[in-house]
C-alpha cells in the first residue's frame, strides 16, 4: 500500500487536490488536512451524524468514508452549504426556530436537512423525522429541529422575498 494517495475532487465548488494516507477518513481529511472544522467528530463510527457531508448530493457520514474515496467526486461541507442560498435559509430557519443549543450536532443536521429538501422540497413531518433519525442531538429534544426543517421547506425563500421587496 502506498504511504499516501493523491486525490483530486471538487470541494465546495472548488477543484481541490490532497495527498492522504490510505487509512484516513474523509472527516479527518476535512478537519486536519484541509482545516474545515465545521464538520464534527462525535462518534467516529457512523452512529451520530455530526460529521454529515454531501457526496455527489447524497448525505454521508464522513467518518465512515475513506478520504481516498473522495477522488473524482463532488463534496459539499457545511462551510460550502452555508455560503449558498439554501444553506443561508437553513441556518436562518434553525436559528429562528430555536433549533440550536450547544450546537455541536447542528452542522450535521443542517447538511442532512439540505439533502432531504433537495430530494423532496415539501416533506411531511414524518418524513423529516425519519430523515434525521441518524443525527443525534442531546440538547433540544429534536422538536425545534423538526420545526426548523418544516419552516425551511415551506413558502418562498424569505431571503429572496426580502430582496424582491427591496427593489
Amino acid at each position, binding site marked *: 500500500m502506498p504511504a499516501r494517495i493523491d486525490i483530486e475532487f471538487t470541494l465546495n465548488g472548488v477543484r481541490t487536490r490532497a495527498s492522504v494516507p490510505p487509512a484516513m477518513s474523509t472527516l479527518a481529511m476535512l*478537519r486536519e488536512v484541509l*482545516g*474545515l*472544522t*465545521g*464538520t*464534527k*467528530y*462525535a*462518534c*467516529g*463510527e457512523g*452512529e*451520530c451524524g*455530526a460529521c454529515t457531508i454531501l457526496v455527489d448530493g447524497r448525505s454521508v457520514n464522513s467518518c465512515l468514508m475513506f478520504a481516498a474515496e473522495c477522488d473524482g467526486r463532488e463534496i459539499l*461541507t*457545511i*462551510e460550502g452549504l*452555508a455560503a449558498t442560498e439554501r*444553506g443561508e435559509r*437553513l*441556518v*436562518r430557519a*434553525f*436559528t*429562528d*426556530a*430555536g*433549533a*440550536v*443549543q*450547544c*450546537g*455541536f*450536532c*447542528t*452542522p450535521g443536521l*443542517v447538511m442532512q436537512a439540505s439533502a432531504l429538501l433537495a430530494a423532496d422540497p415539501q416533506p411531511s413531518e*414524518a418524513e*423529516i*423525522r*425519519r430523515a*434525521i*433519525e*441518524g*443525527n*443525534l*442531538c*442531546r*440538547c*433540544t*429534544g*429534536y*422538536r*425545534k*429541529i*423538526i420545526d426548523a426543517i418544516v419552516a425551511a421547506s415551506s413558502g418562498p425563500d424569505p431571503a429572496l422575498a426580502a430582496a424582491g421587496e427591496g427593489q
Partner: protein
Amino acid sequence: MSAVSENRELATVSLIGARIPKMDAPEKASGRARYIHDLQLPGMLHAKILRSAHVHAKIVAIDTSQAKKLPGVHAVITAADVPWQRPIGVAKDHLPLKPDRVRSLRDEIAAVAADTPEIAEAALGLIRVEYEPLPVLTDATAALEPGAPLIHADRPGNIAMTFDYSHGDVGQGEAESDVVVEDVFRLHYVTHCCMGVSGVIAEFEPNGNLRLYSNTQVPFLHKREFAELLGIDPGRIRIIQPPIGGAFGSKLDIYPFEPIAIFLARITRRPVKLVFTREEEFLASPTRQPVLFRLRSGCRKDGTLTFRVAETLHDNGAYTSWGATTPFVMMQTVSSLYRVPHCKYHTRAVYTNNPYAGSFRGYGNLQATFAVEAHMDRLADAIGMDPLEFRLKNAQEPGETTPQGMHFRTCGLKDCLKSAAERSGYVEKRRAYRARQMDANPVKRGIGMASMLHVGGGAKIYPSDGCGTILKLDDFAHVTLITGASEIGQGSETVLAELVCEELGLPIAAVTVVNNDTDITPWDVGVHASRTTFIAGNSAIGAARKAKAKILAAAAAKSGHAPEALDLRGGFVVLKASGERVIELGKLIRSLHFQDKAELVMTTHYYEPPSKHQDRGFKGDVSAAYAWATQVCEVEVDTQTGIVRLLRVTGAHDVGRVLNRLGIEGQIEGGVVMGQGYALTENLIVEAGAIRNPCFRDYKLVTAPEIPEIDVEFIETMDGEGPQGAKGVGEAPAICIAAAVANAIENATGVRITALPFTPENVYRALRGAAQPPQWRPAD
C-alpha cells in the same frame, strides 16, 4: 425598512416573554463556532492516556522505554514523573496519574504527548505495565459487608459519604397511618453523552502562567483547584471556554485528563491538546449515580400523608465526584415535595471498583422523584382516592416553610397539578385505561403523573452563590455585557442580553456578550443548579439599571425634564408618559463622552438574598426560590413485546415568569426527551466493573422519530426575588418523566415496576412475573 430600524421598533415593546433566537445560533449552525476540538495552536502536541487493564490491581512495574523511542513522541509520563501531583476530586481521593494501584478500568496509568494523536496512540501500545490483580468489589451492598476488601485503606467500611436527616417522629407517623406501603427501587447507570467529547488544551506562557482552554462549567472554582494542584498562585491561571458541546453537569468537577494535559504541557513546554474518543467518553466520563432506594410511606384514610422513611445506597464507584452529594437534593424531595409531618432519610454512598458517578442534570432528583411519586400513586390507590386529589391534598402552597426549613415564597404546585391533569384528561383516561387492563387487546394504554420540586433561585451548595457583571456602553449605544456566567448551550447569553435590553430599551442586536475568559469576566460560582438566569440575570439587571440611572440623569440635566419623567425606549430617551422622543441614546452617549468625560462602565454583582443556611442536620433553606412542575405521561405498552412508547407529555411548569419563550421551550423539550431516554432507552451496562456498551449503537439515545408530543403550560408565579419574576428551569423538565412513565405503565398493565430502565426486555419480564424485583440486602 432596514433591519436596524426594524429592531429598534421592536425594542419599544417589552422583550419579556418574546421568542428570541439564540445569539450564537448562526455561527454554530453554519459550522463557524470553534469548539476545543477545532482549535489548533502553533506547536501544539496531542496527548493520549493509557488506562488500566484491570478493574482492581497493584501496579508492579511500568516500562515506558519503548514508547519514548517512537519518532514523534515528546513525552511519556507516569506518576513517577510528577511526584508533586496532588489528589483531585470532591473528596480529594485520587491522583490524576495512579502511582501504585488501580481501582477501576478508567484509571490513568501513563500519558503520551506526541506530534499527532496517531503517534500518541501508537506509543500507548508500547508501554508495558505489570499488574498484580486484587479482589474486585463491584456491588454496593457487598462493599458494606464485614470483611469486604477496602477500596481506599483510609475509608473504613468503604463509606464515601453519609447523609442523615429527620424531622418529627416517624414511629408516631406510622402509628397514625391507616395505610403503609414499602418498596425497593433500583435506579440504573446512565451517562451524559454530550455530543462534543471531553477535551482540553493546556499551555504555559513563557512567564509560567497557565492558559487553559477548557469546557468547565465552573471556571473560577477550577482556577483555584488547578492552582492547588500545581502549587502556583491562582492568579496565574487563565481559563478560556470556547463554545462547549454540551455539559449537563458533567463538567462540574476536575477529571484526571485535565491535570494530565497540564503536566504534559509543563514538561514539554508546548501547548498540549487532549481530546477523548467517543469510546473513551463512555468509559472515562462520569455517570448519573445508580441508587438502591428503600422507601416506606404512610397516610390516613382521608388522604393525609403521615410519614416517610427513605434509605438509599449509592454506588459511588472508585472515587468521589459530585454524584456522592446528590442525596443532599434527594432528601428535599423526600421531605418537602409534599407535606410530610414525620420524615427520616438515611444515605450511604459506598466505594466500589465501578465507574464513578458525577453530577447530571437533576442531581439525584430523578431518582428521588421516581420513588416518591410511585408511592403517591400506591397510597392513593390503597385508600381508593384519585391520585390527583391525593396529591392536591398534600401539595405545598405559597408562603409555607417546610419542616426541613425550605421556605416557598412562590409555589405553583397546585396550579401545575390542575393544569397538567386537565389538559391531559388525566382523571378520565386513568379510569378508562384501568378498565381496559384485562381486555383482549394486548396493546395497552396508560397515563401517569409525577410532580417535582427543585432549586430555582441558585443553590447554597458552595458557601456563596453570586455572579458579577461589567456593562460597557460605547459611543453608538452598543452594549458590551461582560458576565461571569458560563454558557453551555442553554442560552444564558441571550437571556442576559434580553434582560439588559429590556432595561435600556435596546434591541438584542445592540449587545455583545463576553462570557468565557477568567481574565476578563467577573467572578461567578459556575453554571449548575439551574441558577444562571436567576443569579446572573439579577446581576445583569443591576448593571443595566445603574447605566439607565446614569443616562437618564444626564438626559434630564440636558433636557430640563425630571429624570423620573424619562425612560429608554427604542434607542431613544423618551418621555415616560407620552413616549415622545427627547434625544437619541447614541447621540446622548457621544455627548457624555466628549463633553462630560463620563464613565460609562458599570460594575455590579448579585448574591443570593440572605436566608437561613442549612445547619449540620440539613435544616434551613437551600435556594432563594423553588421551581415546581407536574408532568403527565401517556404511554402505549405492547404486552407481547414489552415495548413502551411515550406518546404524549403534558407538562405544567412553575417558572416564575417566561423570559425567552423560545429558549424556555427548548429547555423543556430537551429535558423531557432526556427524561424519556432515562426512562425507556438509556442503560449504561456495567458488569464486573466494565462498561459493556461504550458506543451509540449499544447505548440507545432517543432519536427524532421517537419523541412524544409535548404540550407545556407555564405557570407564572412572578417570584419577587427573580429577575423580572423568573425562576430557574434548566434541570426541571428531565426530573418527572421516568416517575410518570412508571405510573403510566402501572395504569396500563396493573404491574408496578420499581427498577429502571423500561427497556422492552425488562418490561416483558416484569409483565410475566419473571423479573426479580430489587431487594434491599444491606444490614441496617
